[in-house]
């Protein structure tokens, strides 16, 4: 009796949809918690708070940002998964969703199975920064130098965005550079200015103050379009022999435990996208070096999958060497 079966299936589906819709309408029934895997005052924290404030108004419930820093954001995601689905969400950078499961032993979650993407919030490219009195004035000059001698570059740690981007770049350009890991952009900056190392891929906002003071220069940006905060810095893709699709971006996103009601995730996605349309919010993000990037949950899911693959290949390469 296939007819009866499909009819009852349809009935179950309708019932589920209805309870789902009803639950989503009542949602949220209490304070909403947003777990951030980075300390107060860090850029993921500031971005989460920037969204949390208007979000609380729209939801009519307090939105509490909680900092659970550690292990490059992994602890934040783990803490989110330990919370009550439906009222606990996470704000994270790309690392814990893409590269951490490869690089960090003892990650207790599986991104595909345990985490539901909610919304992409903002993206940031990296810039290739060198000392102001460095011999190279553009990307081609830099590559020439790199082929001639052994250049050293700094990153903010093994497996960090800055490290993987530099390796992706070196690979695409066919050069080899010595990797020197540091713990913060602050250390990388002083090391470049002291001419201890030659270069570093840095967040534009981390490099800007020194560039404005004439102590560093930026040779290229890793986004496919010029970045509004540093509009004069040339795009790397397609120049100096780099492929047209060369792109490396960091991003910030909202996520939820996989058990969260899909209707709740849709609602949150809509609200966040609307918040991101506010020119004031966009301006605040840009002043911190981030570009608002509204989108669907599917687009975020695709970005996670794509980045996991791209960076996974880079990690394979590093491990093979």
């Amino acid at each position: 009796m296939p007819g009866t079966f499909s009819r009852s299936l349809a009935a179950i589906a309708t019932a589920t949809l209805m309870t789902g819709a009803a639950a989503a309408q009542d949602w949220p029934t209490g304070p909403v918690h947003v777990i951030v895997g980075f300390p107060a005052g860090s850029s993921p924290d500031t971005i989460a708070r920037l969204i949390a404030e208007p979000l609380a108004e729209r939801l009519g419930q307090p939105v509490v940002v909680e900092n659970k820093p550690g292990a490059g954001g992994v602890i934040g995601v783990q803490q989110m998964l330990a919370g009550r689905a439906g009222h606990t969400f996470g704000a994270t950078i790309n690392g814990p969703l893409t590269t951490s499961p490869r690089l960090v032993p003892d990650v207790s979650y599986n991104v595909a199975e345990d985490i539901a993407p909610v919304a992409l919030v903002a993206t940031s490219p990296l810039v290739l920064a060198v000392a102001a009195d460095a011999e190279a004035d553009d990307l081609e000059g830099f590559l020439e130098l790199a082929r001639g001698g052994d250049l050293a570059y700094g990153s903010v740690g093994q497996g960090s965005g800055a490290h993987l981007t530099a390796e992706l770049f070196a690979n695409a350009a066919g050069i080899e550079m010595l990797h020197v890991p540091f713990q913060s952009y602050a250390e990388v900056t002083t090391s470049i200015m002291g001419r201890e190392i030659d270069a570093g891929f840095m967040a534009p906002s981390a490099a800007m103050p020194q560039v404005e003071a004439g102590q560093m220069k930026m040779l290229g940006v890793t986004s496919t379009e010029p970045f509004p905060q540093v509009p004069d810095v040339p795009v790397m893709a397609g120049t100096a022999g780099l492929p047209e699709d060369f792109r490396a971006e960091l991003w910030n996103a909202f996520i939820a435990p996989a058990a969260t009601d899909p209707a709740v995730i849709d609602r949150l996605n809509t609200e966040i996208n609307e918040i991101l349309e506010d020119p004031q919010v966009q301006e605040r993000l840009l002043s911190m070096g981030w570009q608002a990037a509204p989108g669907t949950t599917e687009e975020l899911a695709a970005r996670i999958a794509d980045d996991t693959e791209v960076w996974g290949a880079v990690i394979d390469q590093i491990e093979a060497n």
Partner: protein
Amino acid sequence: MTMWDGLLSGLSVALQPAVLIYSLFGVFLGTLVGVLPGIGAMAAISLLLPLTYYISAEAALVMLAGVYYGAQYGGAVASILLRLPGTPQSAITTLDGYPMARQGRAGIALFTAMVSSFAGSILGIIVLVVLAGWLAGLATRFGAAEYAAMMVLGLVAASTVGSGRPAKSMAMVVLGLILGCVGTDVNSGAQRFTFGQTQLMDGINLVALAMGLFGVAEVIGNIRSADSHGRPRRIGLRELVPSRADLRQMPGPILRGTALGSFFGALPGTGSTISSFLSYALERRVSRRPERFGQGAVEGVAGPESANNAASITAFVPTLTLGIPGDPIMALMLGALVIHGIQPGPMMLDARPEMFWGLVISFGIGNLFLLILNLPLIGMWVSILRIPFRWLYPAIIVFVCLGVYSVRGATFDIVMVAGIGAIGYLLTLAKFSPALLLLGFVLGPMIETNLRRALLISRGDPMVFLERPIACGFVLVTAALILMAVVKALRHTRQPA
């Protein structure tokens, strides 16, 4: 704009009533969180950060800075009275401050700490105003080789901090170095001694270690002897005033402590904990009667307390003039500025001179507030000792747990502090110095990271430590110190024969 124009424009900012009130609030809160064991400036500033969205950038920074240097004042209080460092920076103050309190000189110890803190801060401000440009340049002149060589010197110089037998001192330093290895290795990304705990990936929490070794261990120790403690009687203002002999001993340590603190504060990554340890070691070394240290020497309080305050002032140099925060708290303050659309960096002095100078002047005003606030409070602080232990110690444990949790919101750290406390108690029983363990823990990772980084950059050539003049200087001084120690030891062994 000359310095004087700058100072004038700064005055117009710092003397605004709103800014003054936020400064007062900041230093008051700073003192309070400094006094409470475990709860430090980091937690208070994190909590205040969302508030700063709603006030002017000047008021916000003045308030947060007030919390930061105010905590340095408060930190000494519990160190002296209860042997519980309010902050890791004041852990070293327990060594002589607590014996002073046990000798009935708690008021004088507190007075010394307050006055040294004030003098260190004010001298630090003068150093900052006069030498800001030179200090800013230090950050870029110090590469990995310089840091590694300097930290080795620090370790060698400070390993005399403990008063026990040399073998016991060495054991504690080495244990500290080992504990410092826990976590992700910066160079390779490998996990060391984390035993599958993601919470250990960033290393053992410094606050948990300091609070466990000193705070919890002290509480456990007192359970045994709680009743035998004589309760201090109420102390009048007159008993706070040090004798002439006490006063004469203060200027030297304060000046040396300020010099050390100003230097280390201006270097990103080092800072107040290290400078207070080194100041203590220096005082012990230059003292004609080093055996008094650990028994309640005024210099052992004056030096470190001036050093950590001076460091907390000059720490603003790299943050504001280079946009390079020296420690996590400075990074937090940088974040507060960025929220207000101000990007600290080399351009700040030109672009926002009133902001920079306003802050500098607010330091002076804030420290004056602190002195006025704290001197009359000494009597009140001392009366804490009159609280029966059965009330005081449970309260302390609660504050320690709160404080340790507030660092990064991890219950794991509370379990850690309990475990470390138990170990700390055993160490005290066996007369090992926990201060040396802390020293190894703080310096070890810096030595290792910078040593390996220097060798990585030099492509494995160890000559880098001798070719770079500053690094070479540190290596030579270290060698001289070791040589002196060996000569001294040889003489000692020859005498009995």
